[in-house]
């Protein structure tokens, strides 16, 4: 008999079973199906057989090949995922993570974007103005007379060799805009301002202000409250308590100060945000003074509007619980890299 299928299968299976390594298995494979393997030998000798016999043996050889390849594949699978081998690759999963460093945005940039989105959604357009200003836009046009104690509200940096100064607030942006545009309008501005004062945990010589202005027919204090309350609720993403107090700004009448109730504490003495005062002053505001309209070329009999201003750092300090304003300008990466 040229080929005993049953016996061949048995023998092959035994050989395959006895392999313990991939290399052994490869050897077995070669022994049968390699160029000089048993099966090849038999196939070559088939030519000598009569046609009928040839077909029968050919069938059996195919049957064997199918069987053999399946067995080899199964054994290979087993040998490849040997537990002992994988175990050698054990790792300590409690080792510290590998640090991956990302870049970061400045906290004031993060807050500025938030505020810009809120005001844009409320229909306010973003406008900008120069940081070097003159007396006219910074004071006179805002109804702040020369040699008047009201000017003491703004300690000013003056520049040598010119009549210019560093703007003490973003309010000049209002005047510049009103000169060139006709109501109705809603604008806001976020920009750097400067104050000549000693720096401490609460004061900086440069800081950011957010300024807003809405002018139309019949705009009222109630309208201001509507917009202002919506703004703060969106900023803090919850309904927070606010209150108005009377105040004085030469460019608004009536004028107000806006306080919010400390969103962090319930009046604890050591609260980082309100120092136990509960109410935090966050905004100055009021109805645009008729003189400011006149000085910007608008008729105060026809138009009414509200304006407001707030300190960006103050809001950031509340939102991120930061207790020293100087950190913003420290360039300290231990501080900055906490913001993403």
């Amino acid at each position, binding site marked *: 008999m040229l080929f005993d299928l049953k016996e061949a299968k048995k023998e092959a299976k035994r050989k395959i079973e006895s392999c313990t390594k991939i290399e052994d298995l490869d050897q077995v494979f070669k022994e049968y199906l390699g160029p000089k393997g048993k099966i090849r030998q038999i196939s070559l000798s088939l030519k000598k057989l009569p046609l009928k016999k040839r077909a029968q043996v050919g069938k059996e050889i195919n049957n064997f090949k199918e069987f053999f390849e399946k067995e080899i594949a199964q054994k290979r699978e087993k040998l490849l995922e040997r537990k002992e081998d994988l175990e050698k690759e054990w790792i300590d999963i409690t080792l510290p993570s590998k640090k991956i*460093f*990302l*870049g*970061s*945005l*400045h906290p*004031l940039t993060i807050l500025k*974007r938030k505020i*810009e989105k809120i005001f844009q959604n409320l*229909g*306010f*357009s*973003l*406008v*900008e103005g120069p*940081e*070097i200003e003159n007396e006219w836009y910074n004071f006179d046009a805002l109804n702040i007379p020369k040699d*008047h*104690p009201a000017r003491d*509200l703004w300690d000013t*940096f*003056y*520049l*040598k*060799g010119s009549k210019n100064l*560093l703007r003490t607030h973003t309010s000049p942006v209002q005047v510049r805009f009103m000169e060139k545009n006709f109501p*109705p309008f*809603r604008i806001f501005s976020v920009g*750097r301002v400067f104050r*000549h004062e000693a720096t401490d945990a609460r004061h900086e*010589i*440069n800081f950011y202000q957010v300024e807003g202005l809405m002018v*139309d027919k*019949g*705009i*009222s*204090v*109630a*309208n201001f*409250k*509507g917009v*202002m*309350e*919506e703004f703060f609720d969106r900023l803090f993403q919850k309904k927070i308590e606010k209150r*108005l*107090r*009377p*105040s*004085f700004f030469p460019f608004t*009448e*009536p*004028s107000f100060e806006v306080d919010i109730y400390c969103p962090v504490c319930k009046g604890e003495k050591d609260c980082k945000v309100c120092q136990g005062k509960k109410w935090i002053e966050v905004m100055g505001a009021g*109805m645009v003074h008729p003189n400011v309209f006149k000085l910007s070329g608008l008729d105060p009999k026809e138009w*009414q509007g509200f304006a407001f201003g707030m300190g960006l750092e103050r809001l950031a300090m509340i939102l991120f619980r930061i207790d020293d304003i100087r950190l913003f*300008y420290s*360039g*300290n*990466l*231990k501080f*900055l890299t906490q913001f993403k």
Partner: protein
Amino acid sequence: MIFSYNWLQSFFEKKLPEPEKLAEILNLHSFEVKEINKKNKDYLLNIDVLPNRGSDCFSHLGIAREISAILNKKLLGLEINFREDTQTKIKDFLSVKVQKTTDCLRYSARVLLNVKVEPSPLWLRSKLEACGIKPINNIVDIANFVMLETGQPLHVFDLDKISGSFPKRIFVKRAKKGEKILALDDQVYELNEKILTISDSKNALAIAGIKGGKKAEINQNTKNIFIESANFNSKLIRVASKLLDLKTDASLRFEHGLDPNLTSFALDRATFLIQKIAKGRVVEGMIDHYPKKILPKRISFNFQKAESIIGMKIAPETIIKIFNRLQFKIKSKSKVFLELEIPTFRRDINIEEDLVEEVVRLYGPNKIKPVFPLSAFSPPKENLESLWEEKVTNILKELRMHEVYNYSFVSENDKEIFKFKNLIEVQNPTSSEFKYLRPSLIPNLLKNVYLNQKYFSEIRIFELGKVFLEKEKKMLGGIILGEAFLEMKGVIDLLFEKLGLANLWYDSYEPKTNFQFWHPFRVAEVKIDNEKIGILGEILPKILKKIGIEKRVTAFEIDFEKLATLASEEFIYQPPSPYPAIIRDLSVLVPKKTLVEEVIQEIENEAGEALSDVDLFDIYESDELGEDKKSLTFRLIFQKRDAPISPEKVDECFKNIINRLQSHLDWEVRK
């Protein structure tokens, strides 16, 4: 300003709310009460009087009037009850000449004879001390007491020390330039013609409205006095106080502009108290120079307009009650209008809007209901610059850089280290640290590196902010610690690519600017087409050394305004070519100082439009090649957008390129 709770209580018959409660009421209707301190049996309120109310509320009477208006409590009058000695006439003792009425709107004075100067009684001393004023003697103390009470500064002179015979002659006049006065604080002040004085025929006796002089000082030997109660021009006092750098309780009040009708009242109140406490005879009559009497203003109030400003209707009866409580007299009344007479002590009330504010604050601003404005639908305008700001900062963050904000100032020291010229100087800097406006973002970014280098081995920071040269300009600056020219170049490449800016290239640096801090052999100009928009390079090692930075530093600074303008220009989409690309690599041996850009230019010029891209993917230097040589390997990608390209065509083109490169005598194409 400090106010005594007990003193405020003395203006009322009825009990005031507890100090905490009173403070809260003032907060919501008048002024912020910053703190309350208990002292003995009193409470001291630190009240932040608003600048427009300094004219009436730098006084206990003023605050009491506020409380009376808010709580609707009746105010008690101040006692004034003294006898004049009809045997003596004031004109025999004193005459006053005011040189210019605009300098001194009113000058009132009284004379008292035979007063007894001694320490004040305890109640008087403790009231002054509570408010931060040092007691001196009964006469001076009473003058100060009446100032704290009514807001009118008074000054008392020793009549006998004034030069000349009776009647003593007093002049209210401008000082002569260079004139000197020895003041009560033992300082000598040099005066000039901008400063007003109270003088006798020889010397200045006082700097008007600011400080008294030694010459006519009250002391234990003083017998006869004259009390001055005047109203000086507020601007004049403010200017003089600034010139002399001398702020006093009197100047503070005068510069806020007082009611001229207050002088005689305060004068009589002081006269009464002096007669009561220091005895003395009051000479009959009062000097009262008051040529232009100030009358109450009349302002009309329109209910409709008020409603439109407030955005809520407040009942007319409520409004009228508020005005009554404020002592505003209603002269006439209709359904539409009120005609009001404003007492002269309310100098801050000038226009209708001021009246609206009074109504709102006494009614209570927190009772106004918020209402969204009804306005035409006008979508907000897009602000392109802010859009690009957001994009640029996001990209740099993705490139693992940290954003910083620095001061807009540089120091005197920075000016020297960086050899800056033509800086904009601050006239009144807070310190030499902040003396000039920053002409570049780089110096402060380097300071950030210096401060962080101890804690971080890797520092990658950037800032977007204004710099100040001939004019202010928004710049984008960045720094990587280390020799990182090519990495930083990659940062810029990516930034520009993400902004959709093609045609970025790097040109050799032309040192024609103000800035001398770049390493002259490791620096490039960043250009888009022919426009220079920034600089990239290493910072000079000697500058780093002076700042204290141990490693090298690579930096860039780009004109953000130009960048935003270029990025905003229309971006047109190019479809990718549907035809296959053919790739050829090419190595060329060149002298070390040959610019890569130069080789690429030659390749591109020869290849023409068939070549879609050239990448340098290897630079190789070795001893084998020779010391002055380097080998550059390029990958050339041939592809056309609109037609296929045959391998034969590419071979021909590639051959031409090789020939062109070979035509440079010191270049050698390696096979």
